[in-house]
Structure formats: structure tokens, C-alpha cells
């Protein structure tokens, strides 16, 4: 019965969550905390915080961990499959159908019209990431990092994975010291010690 509930909970998350994993987090919370009470709010917040600090897609990390915690390895597999399988199947069917008709002019028109729309979605995502980066790093560092990344990736042809790995290693290796953005976290720490 638990397995069936796990399946239902994550199936609903997978089929109702638009906009990728991060936008389905509230749905996961609704199922896992409010409906089935597998985790309380604090546990859920902790899981999410750690999930966010690790690489990779967030939806499957949440599903896998919560499934594992509730019902072991089978629960884990169950939760992941319920999250991802329905939409992968729909995707494969639709795209295979579309590409089998790709020489028809109206299908070509469709694919042409959709490209700038996806471009807009990516541009919006770009802006979101810049805004979030600014919140933590400040404009100066954000712009410097953005420009350096652009140069390395576009003109020197460095693999983005390497660039990201270097940044991550730098963040781990560097001794934690205060950055220049006074607006958020620093006042607390320094003010308290007096």
C-alpha cells in the first residue's frame, strides 16, 4: 500500500509540474508533507536544502531520497520512475511522430516558429540566474564572472564542465572570508559579536 501511495504521490508531481524540477518542489511538499505526512516541514526543508547544495536534477534527488526513506530501495526506484517515466514516454512518442513527418511544410513551419520562443524562455532563465547571482555575489563579481566565463567558453573553447569544476573547487579550497556585499548576511555576524 505504501508503495502505491509513493507511486501516486510522485506520479502527480511528475505529471502536474511544469517548468522543470525546481518548479515542482511545492507539489512535492504538498504530497509528502501535507497529504501523506512522510516528512514534517523541518525534515522537508532540510532535505531540500541539501538537495540544492548537490549537483544534478532536483526532482529526482527529492523523489529518490524520500522514496528511500519511506520504503527502502524499492521505494526509491518507485518514486523516481513515477516522477520521470510518464513524461519521458509522452516526449518520445510526440517527437518521434513529429520527426517522421518532418518533410511536410507545415511541420517545418511549426519547428521554425518554436525556435525563437524557446530562445525567449532561455533568455528569461538567463536573467533569473543573473539576478540570483547578484543577490549573493553583488553586481561587480557577477559581471566579472559572467564576462570571464563568456571569454573562456566562447573564445577559448573551454568545456563548461571544467570551468564549473574549477569554480567549485575554488569555493571549497578558499578560506571563508567576508565578501563585499554588506547588505545581507554580514551585519548579523559582526554585529552579534559585540
Amino acid at each position: 500500500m505504501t508503495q502505491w501511495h509513493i507511486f501516486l504521490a510522485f506520479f502527480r508531481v511528475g505529471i502536474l509540474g511544469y517548468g522543470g524540477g525546481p518548479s515542482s518542489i511545492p507539489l512535492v511538499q504538498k504530497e509528502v508533507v501535507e497529504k501523506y505526512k512522510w516528512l514534517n516541514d523541518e525534515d522537508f526543508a532540510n532535505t531540500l536544502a541539501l538537495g540544492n547544495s548537490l549537483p544534478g536534477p532536483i526532482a529526482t534527488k527529492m523523489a529518490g531520497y524520500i522514496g528511500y526513506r519511506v520504503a527502502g530501495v524499492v521505494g526509491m526506484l518507485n518514486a523516481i520512475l513515477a516522477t520521470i517515466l510518464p513524461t519521458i514516454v509522452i516526449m518520445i512518442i510526440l517527437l518521434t511522430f513529429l520527426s517522421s513527418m518532418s518533410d511536410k511544410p507545415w511541420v517545418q513551419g511549426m519547428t521554425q516558429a518554436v525556435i525563437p520562443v524557446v530562445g525567449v524562455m532561455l533568455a528569461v532563465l538567463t536573467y533569473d540566474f543573473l539576478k540570483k547571482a547578484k543577490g549573493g555575489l553583488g553586481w561587480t563579481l557577477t559581471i566579472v564572472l559572467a564576462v570571464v566565463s563568456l571569454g573562456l567558453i566562447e573564445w577559448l573553447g573551454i568545456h563548461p564542465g571544467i570551468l564549473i569544476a574549477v569554480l567549485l573547487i575554488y569555493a571549497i579550497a578558499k578560506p571563508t572570508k567576508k565578501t563585499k556585499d554588506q547588505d545581507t548576511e554580514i551585519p548579523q555576524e559582526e554585529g552579534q559579536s559585540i
Partner: protein
Amino acid sequence: MIYWQVFLAFFIPGIVGYGGGPASIPLVENEVVDRYGWLTVQDFSEMLAMANALPGPIATKMAGYIGFQQAGILGSVIGVFATVAPSLLFMIVLLSVLNKFKDSPKVKKMTMLIRPTIAILLGIMAFSFFQTSYENTGLWETIFLIVVSFLLLEKLKVHPAFVIIGALSFGAIFLS
């Protein structure tokens, strides 16, 4: 060999893509378009449009479809596995041990530091999509689609699925 390539192509975005599936889109593009040449920019954007119009996590939809397209059902399973398994394994192991580090400034800093890079990667992709559209469809049609879809998505908050369906219908009628 192809299975190994499929594994690698999705393992790398899965392991360096911080910030959930959407952050790994440009990393996937880098592997499947630039490195392995499995898809053209046009194929990729078509796939991304479809993936955005469908519900569910984006990273696994891409891995599942591209894996299937390159190497059948097994390829699909491998692509999804490579995307999901490494980070999930980390998560389960770490959560049992390292729960206390979640507030660590270093971990926060890690996520923070790579955001501008991810933004640039997304920006580059957006630009190449606009360029492709300009070359294939023409300037005015491209501008029209950009402006209208931006207004619908961001100002009127229309659901992306409907915007995609709208664009598909527009293309089927006016660009054929």
C-alpha cells in the same frame, strides 16, 4: 561504444549542473550538439520546446529522449540513469552523514559562484536560437515571435505549454 557515450554525455551535466535540471540544459546542449553532434541546434531547440511544453523534470526528459533516439530503449535507460544516479547517490549518502553542512557558507558559496557561468551558458544558447531563427525564418518573423512570446510568458503569465502550442499553430499556418 554508443552506450558509453550516452552515459558520459549525461553523466557530466548531472555531476556539474548545480541548480536543478534547467541549469543543466546548456551543459546537455554542449555534449549532444557540440561534442557528439547527435542533434543540430534546430533539433535541440525543437526538443527543448517539446520538453518545456510537457510536465515533469526537464533533465530526465532530455536524457530519456536523446538516449532513445541515439540507442533505443537501453540508451534511454542509460541516459536517465547517468543523469539521476550519481547525484541521488550523493544525496542519500550525504544526508545520512552530513546534514549539518547544509548551512555551511562554503556550500552556499559553491552554488552562488557558478550562477554567472550558468547564466552565460543559457545566454549563449538563447542567442544561437535567435540566430538560427533569423537565418531560417527571417528577421521580422523572428522579432514578432520573440516579442509576442515574451509578452505572453512574462507579462501575461500565460502557461508555457499554451505559448508553445500557439507558436506551433502559427508556424503550421504562416511559415509553411
